[in-house]
């Protein structure tokens, strides 16, 4: 029995690498052309446009509530649409629903896994979703009865092949969007647990996502360890825009309130603003003295302020238009791991590795 002749295999290998090389050259040419097209339309910088805008005054932002109850690092939080309740999750597997205004704990669930990295409040206020190292996203319907065992009604919705990094309900309680360490995002039907759409394109773990607030509501943005921020069409599963200007993992992405731009926060210690219509990065929020990564970002209601939670335990507040830092807030005794502005913009909440959550206003 003769083995296949070696030269034949070698030719195949050569052909394959030639095709790959050809594709690579084509890719580089196209990339260059895209940059050219983008540059043609780039007629003004953000800070130039911002010159005519009034400067901001002094800010007095303080911790208004400190929520103590988690036994370990707080990893994620989300607001309820009622503007006062929140859900938070931590490393010890506990998910707690609080009325942040009164600081009362209303519900507590213990997940079967540790490192619950993602949690979300349903739009109706009647359920919460969470997940982490169990590679799943589960939905827990909430109850008015404080003694009810919520774990009994738990519904397993999403299944990934690696950890769940973020989750979010869409416009209703019936669909959940998830991102995972397996490099994909996915849209799920809650009732049946069916996968409705999956989104492939990231070359490494996807760490964060945010749904567009627009009237069409059909797109979302995701950020990953491949330093890319991708904008996706929920209907087709296609990546419609991609931005790769960060120098390290993107930990957080958040849409600008109008839906025409989004901000990102990364381990490279910068926050950046991307304009979707001009298809380019338009601002970098950084300072020489800030060298620790950003874990989480969110905009104030008008979009003028960008709040960033950092790994050096602080919160930096940026003037989105002028690119300057307007305030630095201290208080947490360990990394700020999550930050969200409340639905009516009256406050923002931060969660930290110091086991607490704080609301600021």
């Amino acid at each position, binding site marked *: 029995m003769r083995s296949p002749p070696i030269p034949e295999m070698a030719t195949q290998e050569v052909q394959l690498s030639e095709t790959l090389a050809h594709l690579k050259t084509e890719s580089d040419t*196209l990339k260059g052309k895209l940059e050219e097209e983008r540059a043609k*339309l780039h007629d*003004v910088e953000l800070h130039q446009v911002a010159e005519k805008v009034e400067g901001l005054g002094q800010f007095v932002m303080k911790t208004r509530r400190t929520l103590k109850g988690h036994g370990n690092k707080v990893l994620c939080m989300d607001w309820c649409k009622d503007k006062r309740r929140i859900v938070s999750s931590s490393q010890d597997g506990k998910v707690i629903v609080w009325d942040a205004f009164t600081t009362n704990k209303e519900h507590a669930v213990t997940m079967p896994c540790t490192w619950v990295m993602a949690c979300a409040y349903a739009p109706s206020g009647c359920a919460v979703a969470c997940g982490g190292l169990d590679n799943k996203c589960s939905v827990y319907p909430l109850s008015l009865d404080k003694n009810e065992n919520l774990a009994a009604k738990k519904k397993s919705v999403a299944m990934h092949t690696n950890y769940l990094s973020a989750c979010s309900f869409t416009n209703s309680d019936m669909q959940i969007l998830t991102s995972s360490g397996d490099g994909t995002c996915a849209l799920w039907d809650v009732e049946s647990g069916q996968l409705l759409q999956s989104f492939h394109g990231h070359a490494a773990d996807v760490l964060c996502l945010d749904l567009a607030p627009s009237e069409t509501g059909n797109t979302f943005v995701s950020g990953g360890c491949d330093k890319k921020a991708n904008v996706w069409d929920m209907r087709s599963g296609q990546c419609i825009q991609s931005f790769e200007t960060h120098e390290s993992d993107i930990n957080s992405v958040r849409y600008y309130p109008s839906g025409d*731009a989004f901000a990102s926060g990364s381990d490279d210690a910068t926050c950046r603003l991307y304009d979707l219509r001009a298809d380019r990065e338009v601002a970098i929020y950084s300072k020489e003295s800030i060298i620790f990564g950003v874990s989480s970002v969110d905009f104030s209601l008008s*979009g003028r302020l960008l709040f960033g939670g950092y790994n*050096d335990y602080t919160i930096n507040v940026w003037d989105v238009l002028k690119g300057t830092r307007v305030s630095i807030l201290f208080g947490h005794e360990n990394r700020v791991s999550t930050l969200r502005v409340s639905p009516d913009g009256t406050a923002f909440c931060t969660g930290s590795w110091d086991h607490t959550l704080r609301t600021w206003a």
Partner: protein
Amino acid sequence: MQEQQTAFATFLMRYSPLEVIVVEMQDPKSGVTGSEQKLNVTTIPHVFAGKDIIAWIANKMKTPPEEAHVFGTMLVAFGYIYPLQNHKMLVMCNDTSLYRFQVNPCFLRNQLTNVFDVVAAIYLAKRNIRKKGMLEPYEQAHYNHLHKWLNHKWDFIVMQATEQYKAGKERKKPDRVVFDCQERAYWILNRPPRRTHSAMDCGPERLIDPNEDENMFYQQAIMRSKVKSSVSLGALVKYITTYKTHDPFLAPCQPSNPWQTDNDTYWTLNMRGVDVPTKMRVERWSFSLFELLTDLRGRDDFKVFLKKEFSGENLAFWEAAEELKWGTGSSMSAKAETIFKTFLAPGAPRWINIDGRTMGLTVKGLDHPHRYVLEAAQTHVFLLMKKDTFFRYLKSPVYKDIQKKALSPETHNFSPAQLEQNAQNRSPGIHPIILWQQEEEEKAKTAAASAPVDVKAMMSKIDRKK
């Protein structure tokens, strides 16, 4: 000591700005001024006071002392500097507390070195020893890559590999074989050679060639319409200017921000079902149709206007299409059928007036309904409302009426004693689950009230009663 320090400095130079600063801090001329610590009869050199370190940072980075303090704490938290007293408290104190710089690279918690890579390197180095340099090509390639990437740690890695190799030799042969197989299987799974089928086919080493898809993506990106920066940035500025007075961080909430005064009147006045909304809320409805529809109280007011114009079917269709899009998979066909009968069928009771082509496509799509089947029709209807109906609403007596009636609450002026009181008596509000149940009941009532009357059923009911 000098040699070690230079080697250390070189090792650091490859890495982050943080580590560059740490090196600068130790410069004998321009760095932090050090001194000696007397411990019984021993004198320990190279000690630094916390306040000196913080002052140096503040000066070098031109930051306020508080920020420099935070930076100093970071250096301690990450092990670049360690405290000599209270060594369990990994913070920097802004006083005469003493600190030293961590010099031994093995004790540095270098965030940038992937621990997994170090473990992989130790494994390959061990195999290299066993196979006497004859690694498989993919292993060799990986070994070379790690050797370059972790060059500074290589002595440590080889030392660990040698230790493990020696310990392995001392195992009984059958145990050794099993262990080796297990270890090898682990590495084949986690660092598969090229062209191996792995269930974990992800990451930059994966088999699917991203280049092909990439080129298509770039072509589409080039063709996609883009807007001039001046236009899009101008729009961002316009948005900010429009919403400036509505942003609680930029302008005070009326009557007061509940988080600041512990009084939740602001939330009560802005609830879903209020009779009379506030002036700010009514103003916000005028910013865009999206704002008007997102605020359910605004949507109600819009519906009052549409009823007067006898043109409520567009909004009703839009709402039904939203329910289909965001609803459960199982309810889709039933919803699609109801929508067809109510809005799209010829002679339907709430027939919507959309162009022939869109109507044709939509009706055809309803044969096999999916959640986006009504997308084209919904967009058409939304644009119609946005460009025409919305503006007529803003000029209508309905809107002007609600503008006049709208409340303008007076700013709260609580004394410190009152604020204390407020803090003791924070209102629990209404639970969202209760509100949700109320809303669902309302929706069911309105749906029943506005459903098209089935004449046949009514006639047969009357007949049965006779």
